[in-house]
């Protein structure tokens, strides 16, 4: 007669103390970047409700993968990478259309040169309100928009941006150059339209 095999024990559930530790470290290291994630999500989706969902989903995915995050490395970059993947996979098709930009077709325009006779110090910028700037950013092609937001709004380095966007550093540089010049042009045109500056007959 064979002895009955002992039942296999269930997998050990994480202890409540371990779960509490995980939540505490996640709150300390990941949730502190909530404002950044939200700002980026808002510029990507162009819509507060979608941005809200995208950030919640990102945080949930990050929490489930928290054991894979290498402590002491850049949590903001890690979170933004998760956010961007979630956006591409699940949101982009629904919200905006992915555009491919012929970068060479964009002629960099120098607002500084245009302003020489009129407002060389660029004081007209002071009269342009937040919403107008955000609108101008939202009108940029997606590749430019995400690069500008990561750099100029979130203050990330070229290398961090290159890692998040999965492109070479040289691409970050050229996108940033063209994106900033395009933005300047949009804001300049707006300021001329509003009569803040005279503008030249182009």
């Amino acid at each position, binding site marked *: 007669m064979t002895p009955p095999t002992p039942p296999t024990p269930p997998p050990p559930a994480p202890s409540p103390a371990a779960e509490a530790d995980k939540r505490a470290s996640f709150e300390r290291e990941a*949730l502190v970047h909530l404002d950044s994630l939200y700002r980026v999500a808002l510029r990507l989706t162009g819509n507060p409700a979608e941005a809200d969902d995208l*950030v919640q989903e990102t945080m949930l995915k990050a929490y489930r993968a928290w054991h894979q995050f290498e402590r002491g490395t850049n949590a903001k970059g890690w979170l933004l990478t998760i956010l961007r993947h979630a956006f591409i996979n699940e949101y982009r098709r629904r919200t905006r259309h992915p555009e491919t930009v012929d970068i060479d077709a964009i002629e960099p325009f120098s607002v500084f040169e245009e302003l020489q006779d009129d407002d060389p*110090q660029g004081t007209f910028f002071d009269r342009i309100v937040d919403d107008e700037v955000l609108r101008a950013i939202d009108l940029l092609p997606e590749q430019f928009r995400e690069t500008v937001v990561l750099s*100029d709004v979130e203050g990330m380095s070229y290398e961090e941006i290159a890692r998040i966007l999965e492109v070479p550093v040289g691409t970050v540089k050229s996108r940033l150059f063209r994106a*900033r010049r395009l933005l300047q042009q949009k804001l300049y045109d707006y300021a001329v339209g509003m009569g803040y500056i005279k503008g030249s007959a182009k």
Partner: protein
Amino acid sequence: MNCRECKEHLYEYLDRELTPAVEQEIRQHIADCPPCGEEFDFEKLFLGFLRARCRAQGAPPDLKRRILDELLDE
């Protein structure tokens, strides 16, 4: 360094992405060359303006609470 070379590094300089040696060369050039100096000042002002205009907005106040609640269910 001449004006053209200097301008090629404009944004890298303002973004603090250059090596200290190149950064020093540019600092010297824009100190000695008023037209380049003015252009760099203008671009610096523009980047500061962008950042100031876009950072005011943060996540909605209750979003953190909702996320924490969700984590509790995990």
